[in-house]
């Protein structure tokens, strides 16, 4: 599968080592990825040729309408949807907002009791901050803590369910540490709860999952998962940024949060992002047809993890190794800080991400690491590498070799590091660029 060639239009003013030796290794796929070549080819006609508004009656409009409908069908196939709707949105964040606000807000004025949401402390901010905003509006929220392996326990959610619970929202794969939640089991538990509620004529508990990080590699059959609502994001699966989707099971009472025209079955107003929806449809079709071996990715991931844990002292994996997304490596490096690690990686052309406070505008450490480990130092010293289908073993070897030198260099200058890591004589330490056999 060819990847759309990236431009080298780089505003980074300082000449980086990467620009000198030309090596570029992208290991931040959880943040975003390139548009897949087939997706790109599929959407090109919709910018200048079939540019119509799907709501228009004429042939330009009809062509656009057919394209959007086809994309919707592709999403329905991908999710094995039998009863329900797929609503196109501007991305994962909007889909999360629609699921949570769209479902819960109508409950606010219904009963004397506040509606209650159950979620986790390490959800993506699109879910967390939406729940927090609803709390200000009189909604009750329970935030379940993940266990020490970064996993959510079904029993913890079950215990938290109350008479006024209307929604459970738990992310399928955590974006920072890659741990996988037991979505199917949670869904089954909720269905049992709803059977009891039916007998007592009480309203249901609905179940939403943010599946943004899961869509590429995990089972997305909504009946298998027993979910009522599910969020997908385009730019994590080879579609462009600016498009996503929300699956809504039949009978789930969601009201629109973006009001206006009648698009998307009156659930999301606004002229459809035709190219975006076509892209999303093609992207999920590619996933279904893909012959890419996920086990190969897992092996690459484990190779990375094992090399780091054995070759760099005082390192730890964040989150369960077994219940983990095939592409996620999240490592805690003791005594050193994340942003300085990232900057050093950037200087040799490697892209990654960190939970350090220094990388966030809010200067807050990663709430995910804090939720699992309650350790700010761990948050500051953690780096996330996420692999893609284009990632090679050579790229990983290049990364590990540079990582070893970077950690050594940073520990030599860290007042936290024990004496054994200090290089006494050096007052000038330079970055070592490892020549490698990468094909450029």
């Amino acid at each position, binding site marked *: 599968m060819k990847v759309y060639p990236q431009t080298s239009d780089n505003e980074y003013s300082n000449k980086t080592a990467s620009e000198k030796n030309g090596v570029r290794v992208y290991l931040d796929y959880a943040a975003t990825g390139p548009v897949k070549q087939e997706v790109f080819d599929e959407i090109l006609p919709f910018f200048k040729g079939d540019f119509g508004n799907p709501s228009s009656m004429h042939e330009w409009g009809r062509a656009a309408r057919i394209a959007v409908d086809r994309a919707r069908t592709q999403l329905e196939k991908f999710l094995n949807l039998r009863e329900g709707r797929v609503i196109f949105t501007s991305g994962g964040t909007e889909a999360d907002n629609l699921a949570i606000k769209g479902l819960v807000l109508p409950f606010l004025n219904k009963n004397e009791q506040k509606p209650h949401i159950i979620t986790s402390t390490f959800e993506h901010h699109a879910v967390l901050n939406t729940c927090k905003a609803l709390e200000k509006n009189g909604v009750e929220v329970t935030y379940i803590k993940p266990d020490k392996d970064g996993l959510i326990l079904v029993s913890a959610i079950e215990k938290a369910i109350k008479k006024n619970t209307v929604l459970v929202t738990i992310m399928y794969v955590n974006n920072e540490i890659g741990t996988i939640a037991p979505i199917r089991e949670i869904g089954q538990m909720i269905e049992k709860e709803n059977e009891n509620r039916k007998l007592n004529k009480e309203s249901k508990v609905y179940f939403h999952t943010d599946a943004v990080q899961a869509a590429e590699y995990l089972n997305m059959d909504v009946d298998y998962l027993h979910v009522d609502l599910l969020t997908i994001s385009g730019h994590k699966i080879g579609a462009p940024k600016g498009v996503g989707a929300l699956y809504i099971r039949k009978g789930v009472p969601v009201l629109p949060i973006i009001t206006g025209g009648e698009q998307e079955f009156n659930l999301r107003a606004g002229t459809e992002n035709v190219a975006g929806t076509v892209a999303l449809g093609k992207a999920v079709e590619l996933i279904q047809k893909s012959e890419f071996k996920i086990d190969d990715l897992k092996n690459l991931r484990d190779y990375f993890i094992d090399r780091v844990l054995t070759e760099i002292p005082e390192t730890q994996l964040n989150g369960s190794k077994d219940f983990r997304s095939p592409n996620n490596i999240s490592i805690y490096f003791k005594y050193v800080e994340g942003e300085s690690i990232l900057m050093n990686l950037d200087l040799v052309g490697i892209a990654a991400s960190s939970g350090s406070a220094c990388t966030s505008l809010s*200067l807050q450490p990663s709430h995910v690491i804090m939720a699992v480990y309650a350790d700010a130092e761990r948050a500051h010293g953690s780096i996330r590498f996420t692999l893609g289908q284009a990632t090679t073993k050579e790229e990983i070897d290049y990364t590990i070799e540079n990582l070893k030198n970077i950690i050594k260099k940073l520990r030599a200058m860290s*007042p936290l590091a024990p004496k054994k890591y200090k290089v006494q004589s050096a007052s000038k330490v330079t970055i070592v660029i490892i020549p490698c056999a990468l094909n450029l």
Partner: protein
Amino acid sequence: MSNISSLYSGKVMDHFKNPHNMGEIENPSGVGRVGNPVCGDLMELQIKVENNVITDAKFQTFGCTAAIATSSILTDLVIGKTVEEALKVTNIAVVDALDGLPPVKKHCSVLAEEALQKAVEDYNSKK
């Protein structure tokens, strides 16, 4: 993560890539340690004072690019100065010497100034 890297000046990147005076002094005259690993910033400045002149300074830092750069350039700014002159080195002088810092990173320069003050305080208390 925000696009902080494109906001760093060439000087900041130079000090980050090749820090000046990183390490420790044998029998330092004064040591100043500030910050907090919980916050993500820890700086230690060690100074050697002879005849009231700072003849040597070394730093160690746990922190981001800006933190490393500010502590590195701080050593440049104090070596060769008298203790009194060195105390006049403010966080603004540090930021200027680095050709500026992104607003969200200004606090790193404050930390550098504090490290210097503490090192001098320590030296004075030992005299």
